[in-house]
């Protein structure tokens, strides 16, 4: 860092804060007085974001921020991690050791590799107390939720609610003007900025709200165990990370909806978003890149996720946090200490950061390309069924199309008629569970099993990327009940009038191509609606 006097610190700070404000101001999505939930993970970027908001709301900031913040922290990275260590980011990004005084560090504690639940209760409680200590200094309403609470979520969290009527730029300006006018009036009347009228500042003396479940008690052991069981059953780290991300998103969404927040801010930095874009690409989420990495993500309808830190690189965040003593809490992530080849996320991160060392504009190039993506499905039909897990419009084609999806659902090696040496009589396709190594207490291949139907039902409601992830989840039973309940509800909604005609055991699956992980092939009906495969078997041609 240049050491030409101390003036550079002020310049850097001004530049950093300006970027934050500029991103918010340019997009004009956050209206004055709006309730915004800050998703804080304890990590550097989200800590920096929370700090920016704190400073931005203080009286002496140049132009005060006008929204009403709250903070949410999701506790629950325990499911997999067995050892704790600093996340291994490329050395360049962290030029100074992150052991300075303002950063709260958990002392190293080695567990045996392969322990099912990494953090012991004591460590978890300690992390929580550190988290709470920081949250209490903020002065905003804060919510701490444990990941185990996913088992108590209602199915409605997966539904896209109607969005609030969003105004145009004109409306934004009008809203700002009227807000300012209201402020002036209040000040003129000598009321001052009382919390009730201004809604813009939480008094430090205001008791901090928190969830009804007091966190002095840890979550019930049954739930923790169920969570461990779920994550242990997932075969690859990639799928685990995706699942964790999905569950966390649903949890935060639920908190936002319950407490009336219409916006959620996440602290994704430019570097993280570039990595996320490339990762999403590799996971088959090319259709949704604009939602996954853009400034605003409106897929949930009433709650909009915004990413105000998207123009800050991880390096800048690190410097800022170090220079200006931004408190953060280190919590081990699901892939801390995992080898680099373990998951697509880690691979992509390692690759991009290494390439960045050789071509210094890699991250910014990827980021700039991400800005050119638009939120439009390629064939123009925006209103279609939505993915059960990620809530984006489904991006799967018909099974016999000349596309990557079609290629993976077709199976031409089964088209051979069985020779006389094969089993005579009705050919029974071995139960798929034997092939993909699922629950051993299945039918042992004697008949196509019911489990397959319910799994196929869920798979059919997922987008391509989520389907690929589910291939690594051998059984859907450990999933939290709200997911399965919503899947059940949606499949019934699809075909109510034929429900009564459906037989429970659909026999003769010999012509099913590509069921199992990819779901039964979609058949296009007259009006473009998909017809459940089991119906076709009952229809005599």
């Amino acid at each position, binding site marked *: 860092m240049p050491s030409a006097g101390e003036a550079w610190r002020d310049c850097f700070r001004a530049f950093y804060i300006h970027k934050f404000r500029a991103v918010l101001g340019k997009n004009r999505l956050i209206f004055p007085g709006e309730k915004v939930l800050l998703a804080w993970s304890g990590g550097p970027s989200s800590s920096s974001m929370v700090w920016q908001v704190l400073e931005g709301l203080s009286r002496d900031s140049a132009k005060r921020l006008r929204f009403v913040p709250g903070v949410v922290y999701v506790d629950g990275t325990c499911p997999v991690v067995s050892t704790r260590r600093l996340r291994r980011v490329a050395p360049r990004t962290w030029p100074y050791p992150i052991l300075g005084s303002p950063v709260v560090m958990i002392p190293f504690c080695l567990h045996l590799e392969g322990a099912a639940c990494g953090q012991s209760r004591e460590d978890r409680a300690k992390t929580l107390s550190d988290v709470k200590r920081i949250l209490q200094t903020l002065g905003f309403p804060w919510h701490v939720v444990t990941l185990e609470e996913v088992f108590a979520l209602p199915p409605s969290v997966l539904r896209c609610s109607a969005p609030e009527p969003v105004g145009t730029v004109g409306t934004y300006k009008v809203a700002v003007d009227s807000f300012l006018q209201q402020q002036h009036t209040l000040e003129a009347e000598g009321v001052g900025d009382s919390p009730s009228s201004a809604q813009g500042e939480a008094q430090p003396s205001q008791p901090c709200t928190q969830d009804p479940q007091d966190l002095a008690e840890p979550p019930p052991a049954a739930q923790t165990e169920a969570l461990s069981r779920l994550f242990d059953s997932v075969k690859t780290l*990639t799928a685990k990370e995706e699942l964790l991300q999905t569950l966390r998103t649903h949890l935060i969404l639920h908190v936002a909806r319950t407490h009336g927040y219409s916006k959620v801010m996440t602290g994704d930095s430019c570097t993280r978003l570039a990595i996320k874009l490339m990762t999403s690409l590799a996971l088959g989420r090319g259709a949704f890149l*604009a939602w996954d990495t853009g400034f605003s993500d409106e897929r949930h309808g009433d709650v909009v996720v915004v990413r105000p830190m998207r123009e800050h690189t991880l390096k800048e965040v690190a410097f800022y946090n170090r220079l200006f003593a931004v408190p953060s809490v280190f919590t081990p992530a699901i892939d801390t200490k995992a080898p680099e080849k373990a998951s697509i996320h880690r*691979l992509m991160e390692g690759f991009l950061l290494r390439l960045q060392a050789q*071509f210094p504009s890699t991250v910014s190039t990827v980021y700039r*390309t991400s800005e050119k993506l638009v939120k439009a499905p390629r064939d123009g039909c925006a209103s279609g069924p939505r993915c059960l897990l990620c809530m984006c419009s489904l991006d799967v084609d018909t099974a016999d199309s000349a596309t*990557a999806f079609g290629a*993976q659902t077709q199976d031409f090696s089964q088209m051979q008629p069985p020779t006389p040496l094969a089993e005579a009589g009705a050919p029974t396709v071995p139960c798929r569970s034997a092939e993909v190594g699922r629950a051993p207490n299945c039918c042992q291949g004697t008949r196509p099993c019911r489990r397959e139907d319910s799994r196929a039902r869920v798979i059919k409601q997922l987008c391509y990327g989520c389907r690929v992830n589910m291939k690594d989840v051998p059984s859907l039973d450990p999933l939290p009940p709200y997911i399965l309940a919503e899947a059940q509800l949606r499949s019934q909604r699809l075909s109510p009038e034929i429900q009564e005609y459906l037989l429970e055991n659909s026999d003769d699956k010999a012509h099913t191509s590509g069921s199992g992980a990819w779901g039964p092939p979609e058949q296009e009906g007259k009006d473009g609606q998909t017809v459940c495969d089991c119906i076709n078997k009952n229809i005599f041609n």
Partner: protein
Amino acid sequence: MPAPQCASCHAARAALRRPRSGQALCGACFCTAFEAEVLHTVLAGRLLPPGAVVAVGASGGKDSTVLAHVLRELAPRLGVSLRLVAVDEGISGYRDAALAAVRRQAARWDLPLTVVAYADLFGGWTMDAVARSTAGSGRSRACCTFCGVLRRRALEEGARLVGATHIVTGHNADDMAETVLMNFLRGDAGRLARGGGLGSRGEGGALPRCRPLQLASQKEVVLYAHFRRLDYFSEECVYAPEAFRGHARHLLKLLEAARPSAALDLVHSAERLALAPAARPPPPGACSRCGALASRALCQACALLDGLQRGRPRLAIGKGGGARDEEGPPPPPPSDPGSAPGPADGECGAACKERCE
């Protein structure tokens, strides 16, 4: 432990496991399935109508060999006739041996072969000459940039010479996956917008081209070539190590280790990308010099050759100069001038077919 029975014919012993599904198949059933899949791609994508005269870009490598072989098997069913077109870029120590392989194949399959050479088409400029011309500037030589663009022109010329109506190339799923990764890493929004389908329909007088092997993974192509005992040339191009594509290829190998379906997942992503209208290339016109399809006054081939003739080989490379991208202001100069991610690999809408193995 003896191999299991073939899952398809239940008669022979399985000889391989399909990389995609893990299914155990005997050689014959696998090849049949592979051919059926390619047929399906062609039919479902409506790539080659009956009566088409198809120019197969034959390099002697495994992909074009497999492509030519499969299409030859399917030609009666599709009702198309085939011509082999090979391009001689003038890379000594590489292309001569590859061309020998193509000639052997043409003789064995009894297909007409036409060889077009850069030296004839482009005023004496072979790739070796281009490499000498672009060397020594301190930056990468960008040979693949020239080669990719010029080869496509050459292929088009060759196809016209034989009276073809369609051009097919042997790009497989791994190629397309690498292409989309590479285009993102280099920020090539124009190519991202153009790519993703099974080929291009051929606007403005250009011949329609397609990639029937696009949904087949590289491993399966190699397996097919093995089981059909095809004779192909498998060394890498002399200039390949310099290509930026190498990074994308390395990344794809890593991704496939973590998730075997990575290549097809990337192809799916590429199919579904939605780019802003401003990022898309403008509707194509005709090159003012040679009349070929071009999105600017000069087609890229003419622009590159122009630069070479003038002794300024980088004239048409990169942004801000007769560049292929439609970006507005040029990006800020990279902090390290010798290592900018300058377009070091030739792309114009599809993958560069030459790859290091």
